[in-house]
């Protein structure tokens, strides 16, 4: 099965526009879940979520804080794991990844949901098509 997502145009504070690849995902832990439009970032090692989301889902995090280079510079994160459901147009068109390692951002100003490579990209063939669409095809070995 191949899931298809798109790039969306965002207006920047300086009036210019940029296009970003946005994927439709559900973050799930036990009986709690939230659906997000997340940025797909092939340059990010780990999937990152805000602490607000981790708290809402009731995720347990490692006690040790790690440092991670983020958009606001060096920031503190705590490791955790979550189920990520990649949604398609229909309910049956979805791909589920369980127990995906993630980084929970501790800085309250780091509020982005970003899908990184580790624990995600090895399960799919992902094709970025000239800022028009992004296709996700689950690799058969999984």
């Amino acid at each position, binding site marked *: 099965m191949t899931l298809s997502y798109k790039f969306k145009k965002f207006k920047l504070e300086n009036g210019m526009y940029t296009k970003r690849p*946005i994927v439709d995902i559900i973050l799930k832990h036990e009986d709690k879940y939230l659906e997000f439009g997340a940025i797909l970032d092939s340059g990010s090692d780990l999937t990152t979520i805000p602490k*607000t989301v981790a708290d809402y889902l009731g995720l347990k995090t490692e006690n040790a804080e790690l440092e991670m280079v983020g*958009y606001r510079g060096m920031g503190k994160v705590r490791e955790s794991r979550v189920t990520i459901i990649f949604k398609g147009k229909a309910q049956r068109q979805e791909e589920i990844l369980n127990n995906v390692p993630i980084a929970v951002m501790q800085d309250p100003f780091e509020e982005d949901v970003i899908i990184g490579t580790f624990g995600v990209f090895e399960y799919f063939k992902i094709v970025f098509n000239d800022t028009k669409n992004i296709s996700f095809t689950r690799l058969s070995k999984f």
Partner: protein
Amino acid sequence: MTTNYEWFMENNMDKFSGKWVAIDGNKVLESDMKLDALLKKVKDSYPKSRPFITKIRDKLLRLRS
């Protein structure tokens, strides 16, 4: 039937620049600068809704090294 993701991707969100938005049923239910405030608004005003949530980021994203 249009999904919340499709509706978001096809509609102009410029007026929500810098904010988090919660979308359900082909409309923006709530918006806020802070995610925790948005989640509370949705829970209070639309307790049965399971919206699509995203941030309309108006700053350039870049990695620092």
